[in-house]
Each structure stands twice: as C-alpha cells, then as structure tokens.
C-alpha cells in the first residue's frame, strides 16, 4: 500500500507534527509520503513541521541501517518510513508577491469576465499579496488553486502522479488531506486539491485503488485581534470562523451528496475554542502551539492508512470529540485500530523520551573514557558494548562520532516530543475552564504562555526528587518508575536482526511500555 499525506495550511502542518510523533510511537503505516500545501511559504508552523520531518527521517535512516544500527523490522520505534521531498511544500502561487489579479491575468480578461470578477472580489482582495497566504479568504484561495495547474514536474504533484500510476499498476493508494474548514489555505485547498487528484485519476483512467480521505478541522481555536491593527489589513478574523464554517459545511454537504471525492472524511473541532496567546497576520511569526484537536486529525489519518481500515463503497463521514466534562482524559484518544492502542503507544513514547533525555542520553554522551564508567553494568555490557564492539580497536565504538551524532539527534528528538506534549497540555486549555489530565509536566518543564516561539523550556537536569515524580508522569493507573525501566532494559531480550545502537533504542522503547 502506498500512503500519501497532504497537510494544507498552517493547520495541516500542525496536524502533521502530531502525526509524525504518533508515527514515531509506532501508530503509523509502514510507509508514508508527506507533503504540505501553503501559500505562506514562511509560515512558522510549516517550517517547524519541515524541520521535524527532516529530524524524523534522518534519525530513522540512521537507526534502520541494515547491518550497522538497526532497530529491526519488528520495532515500533520510528516504524513508519516517512518520506518527503526536500522542498516538501507546494506553494500554489509561487513568486515574490503574487496577487489574484495577476494570477487570473485580469488585464487580459473580457470586460464581462472582469465585471464578474469585480462582483466576486473587491479591489483590495484582487490586489492582496498572496505570498503570506490567503488571509482567511477561501474564495481567493480556491480561485488561485484552481487557476494553477497540477504540474507533473512539480515535486509535489509528481508524487501524486506517481501514486496514481502505481494505482493503475494494482497498488492500493491512499491519499489523506488535512485542512481547516475555516481560514484561508486550508479552507480553499481541502476540496480543490482533492478534486485535482480525482481529475488526475480520471485523466489517467485509473478507476480503482485510489482512496482519498480527509480530516476537516472545524474551528478549534480562537485568538484576540489587537486593537491597533489597521482596518484595511486583511487577515483571518476569528469572529468570522463560525459563519465561514457554516457556509463551508453547507457547501460540503452538497459536495458529498453529489460528488464522491472523498472516501472517508474525519470531522473534528473543539468547544470551547482554545485560546491562542498571540496573533500574527502571517509569515514566520505565525507560529501556533500544538492543540489537542490536531491529534484527532492525525489519528484520523493513521486510522485511514491502517490496513485494518476497510474502505467502503459509499462515502463515510466520521466525527469525534472529547467527553462532555471539562477534563481531557486518555480515554478521549481513539485507537487507530483494534490492534493499535493509541494511548499505550503515545504513553510509551513519552516515557521513552523522558528516560532517554534525562537518564540514558547523557550517560551515553561523550568519549568512551567518559562513558566507560558504566562499562561494568549489565545493560551497558549486553546492549551497548556487545553491539558496538569493534574487532579492530577491541573496544566499543560508542564514543565515535557517528554514534555520538545519533545519540545527540535522538536526544533532540526526545526533547521535541516532550516539548510537543507539554505545549499541547498547556496551550489547549490555557485561559479556559478545561483541564488536560494526561501527563504531569511541572516537574520537568516550565510553560510560559506569553512566549511565542519557545513557550516550553525543559529543565537541563532533574534532581532526585524530580526523578521520583516520573512515576506520576502519566496520569493513569500505571505506576511505571525509572527503576522499572532500568530493570526492563536489563532483562528484555534483543531481536535477531537488531544491530548497533538500534538494539539499545528499541529495548529502551519497549522497556517504557506496559
């Protein structure tokens, strides 16, 4: 099966962030190609997701290198082989400052067409520079997207073309699109990109094996518009979200009724809306914290891609929400499939990230002479030394540059996981009556809501008392301690095809599980 994920706009990029983390926990499919669509090339979230994707792919490649450092095919850690292009973002309207007028070649239009355009779009809209997105104007975005061609030569669309070619060859292809129903890029791109894909499919006369799914994000966040903003400035206005949503839903109901573009649609939102702390019109300063509703979209995508998910003949629309109380619980997280328990996997990942970042990563960082103090310990001898031993140097290569790079990268990635879950825990419920009862974060991190780019700062080191709090990290019945993890590491068996640092990483990951 070939899987493709397209995240549209900032919301799509954020949902991809959630999806990458859940894939690293082993919830994703075996293979997945990821692409993003955003007119706002410099969007903060898009860049963050790009960086995260690169980290994931780099780390995964290093830890699934057969014969060198191999987690083994059975390992859930970085299970999904995510691929993307170096330039993974499709900008519908490239160029320095494209406007709608330029896109439609207004000056070359007939008068009556001009007149129609003037009715649909006011001059401000026609002149709006689109380099920072469609500013909450799906009408603009839709027009711009439809005006551009799905060029097979573009890196983004070439993947779609290849996918459809593979479908013609009998391969099962699933394409999932994530976007918001409100706002700009997402609202405009969600149905139109799907249409474009169907059009390509039709062009290539591929009638089967291509399934399109989508996660449609209803309004789930809100923000305060500053008083000093210029009246003439065009931006996504939160007070219009609901009206836009209402109008969009009417559109989609008609679309789904008459035109089966999507096989499965996952609809979700949030009530009350999460309050974003900072407002930005666009650009790289438009950088929003991860919110819980985005996890639903990510899990929806993973459910769509799961082999147990049978695509029906008729269109299916799924919706999900949390429980009715103000508390967000682990039970609010749906399973990807009957055999993939999302809660267990995510908890496993969080514990892994914690123990690696503060316990094992620092222990394995440095030269061999520094690390050697652990050389008499069972876990080190069995897992590290035995699997990084060099016959030439007659010693472990753990201190070598390559291995050290992997250790550092993994530590960074673990910090990303911890930052993600901490940020989500606080940002989803800040300034609201809601409470997210998933993990305890105060003993290892600090949350500063007013900061834009770095709301969460992780502690450099943890004291003994703080380490004991690990037992309560997950607000759940299970009380796994760091000592339990150490014990599990010492006893868990290695898998046959594991190699190098992959042995340790996988054993540590499994030791953090149930």
């Amino acid at each position, binding site marked *: 099966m070939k899987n493709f994920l397209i995240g549209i706009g900032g919301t799509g990029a954020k949902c991809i962030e959630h999806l990458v983390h859940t894939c690293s926990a082993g919830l994703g499919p075996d293979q997945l190609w990821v692409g993003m669509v955003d007119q706002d090339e410099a969007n903060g979230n898009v860049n963050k997701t790009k960086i995260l994707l690169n980290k994931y792919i780099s780390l995964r490649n290093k830890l699934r290198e057969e014969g060198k450092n191999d987690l083994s095919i059975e390992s859930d850690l970085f299970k999904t082989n995510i691929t993307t292009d170096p330039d993974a973002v499709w900008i519908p309207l490239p160029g320095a400052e494209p406007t709608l007028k330029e896109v439609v070649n207004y000056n070359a239009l007939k008068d009556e067409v001009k007149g129609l355009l003037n009715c649909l779009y006011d001059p401000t809209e026609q002149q709006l520079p689109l380099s920072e997105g469609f500013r909450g104007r799906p009408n603009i975005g839709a027009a711009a997207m439809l005006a551009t061609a799905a060029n097979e030569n573009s890196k983004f669309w070439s993947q779609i073309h290849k996918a459809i070619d593979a479908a013609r060859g009998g391969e099962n292809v699933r394409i999932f699109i994530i976007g918001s129903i409100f706002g700009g890029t997402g609202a405009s791109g969600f149905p139109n990109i799907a249409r474009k894909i169907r059009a390509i499919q039709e062009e290539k006369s591929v009638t089967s094996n291509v399934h399109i799914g989508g996660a449609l994000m209803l309004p789930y966040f809100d923000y305060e518009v500053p008083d000093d903003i210029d009246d003439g400035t065009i931006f996504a206005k939160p007070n219009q979200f609901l009206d836009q949503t209402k109008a969009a839903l009417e559109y989609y109901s008609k679309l789904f009724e008459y035109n089966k573009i999507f096989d499965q649609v996952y609809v979700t939102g949030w009530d009350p809306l999460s309050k974003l702390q900072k407002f930005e019109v666009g650009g790289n300063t438009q950088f929003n914290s991860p919110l819980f509703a985005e996890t639903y979209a990510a899990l929806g995508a993973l459910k769509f891609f799961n082999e147990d998910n049978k695509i029906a003949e008729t269109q299916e629309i799924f919706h999900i929400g949390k429980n009715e109380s103000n508390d967000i619980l682990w039970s609010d997280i749906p399973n990807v499939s009957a055999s993939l328990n999302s809660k267990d996997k995510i908890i496993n990942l969080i514990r892994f990230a914690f123990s690696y970042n503060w316990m094992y990563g620092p222990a394995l960082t440095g030269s061999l002479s520094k690390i050697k103090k652990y050389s*008499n310990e069972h876990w080190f001898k069995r897992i590290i030394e035995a699997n990084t031993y060099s016959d030439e140097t007659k010693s472990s290569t753990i201190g070598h540059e390559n291995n050290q790079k992997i250790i550092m990268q993994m530590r960074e990635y673990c910090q990303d996981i911890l930052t993600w879950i901490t940020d989500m825990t606080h940002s989803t419920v800040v300034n609201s009556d809601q409470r997210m009862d998933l993990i305890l974060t105060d003993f290892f991190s600090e949350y500063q809501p007013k900061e834009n780019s770095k709301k969460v700062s992780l502690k450099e080191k943890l004291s003994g008392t703080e380490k004991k709090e690990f037992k309560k990290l997950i607000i759940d019945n299970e009380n796994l301690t760091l000592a339990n993890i150490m014990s599990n590491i010492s006893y868990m*068996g290695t898998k046959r095809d594991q190699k190098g640092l992959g042995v340790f990483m996988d054993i540590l990951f499994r030791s953090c599980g149930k």
Partner: protein
Amino acid sequence: MMINILKTLPWYFVGLGTLGIPAILLIVSLLVPVDAENYFFGSDWVANSFLDFAGVEEDGQDRFSTTSEFNIMMAWLNINLLIVTFVFSLGWSIGSHFLNIDEPGKAKFFGLPWIVISALCIGAIVVVCLIVLTSSIFYVSQYVTTDSTFNIIIISAVFYGLMYWIAVILGTARQARSAVLLANKLPARNFL
C-alpha cells in the same frame, strides 16, 4: 517486575546449589545412624574432627552414643545455617529487584547496603553457631572444646558465606550486579 524476578531465580538456585547440595549431603550423612554401612553416610568423621573424646571418656560416657548425639547437633547446626543463608541470599536476590536503580551508574551505590546485609548474614551464621555450640540446647556441645568451637565457626562462616556469595552473584537482579562483589564480571547475555 515479577517476570524479571522469575528469570533470575533459576540462576539463584544454581548458585545456591553449588555449595548447597554438598551441605545437604553433609546433613543427610550426619542424620544417618553412625553404624550404617556406607562409606560416605553414617560415618563419624565429623565427630572425629571436633569432638573431645578424652572428655567423653573422662565422664564415663561412651563414644558411640556421644558421636550419634554430636552428629545430630551438627546436622541441626547445618540445617539452621542453610536456612539463614537461604533467607539472606534469597532476600537480597529478590530485594535487589526493588532497589531504586533508576539511572545508569547508580547500582554501585547499593554496594554499601549489600555489604551491610552480607555482614549481617555472616553475623547471623556466627550467632547460630554460638547458640548451638554454647547454649543448653545440645548437651553434647560441652564436648566441643573452645578451639573446636572456633574452628567450626570459622569453617561455617567461610562455607556458608561462600554459598551466600555465589548465590547472590547469580541471583542478584541484573541491574544491581554492580552492587555485589565481582557480580559484574559475569558475562552479560540475554539469558544471564
């Protein structure tokens, strides 16, 4: 945790058995009647090593019955020593799984508790010897001279101390091996 304990217990029993089986054989040989026709069992070599036969004859008692009583005393001594060693070694082996070794490099700091427990084990062995050999439980203990008492205590402390040590080397939780003398020299394998 239980599974990890169960994985280590067989090794514990292997360690305990290296000297535990000879101890059991010794106990059996002491409990078998002295006149039993068997080279190993039913012999009086222990009594010949430690019993003051001159004192026995001085009191007008006969060697045979005194040897029988002495063998029974030594058998009970070894049974109790075996129990003490078993309790301490099993207690440590299982308890080591519950030590708060929560990060790399922490195991060696539990060496001090291990030393304390080992010292308590040796102390208990000595106390058991003293109780059996100097109290009023066994009258035949009077025919064990001070030198022989000292020798028995030393031999028991060494033998059962070694038994305890071998048992804990193999029976200690893997993550806690650095706390036990020379346990970390064991090969680190998936099964050991």
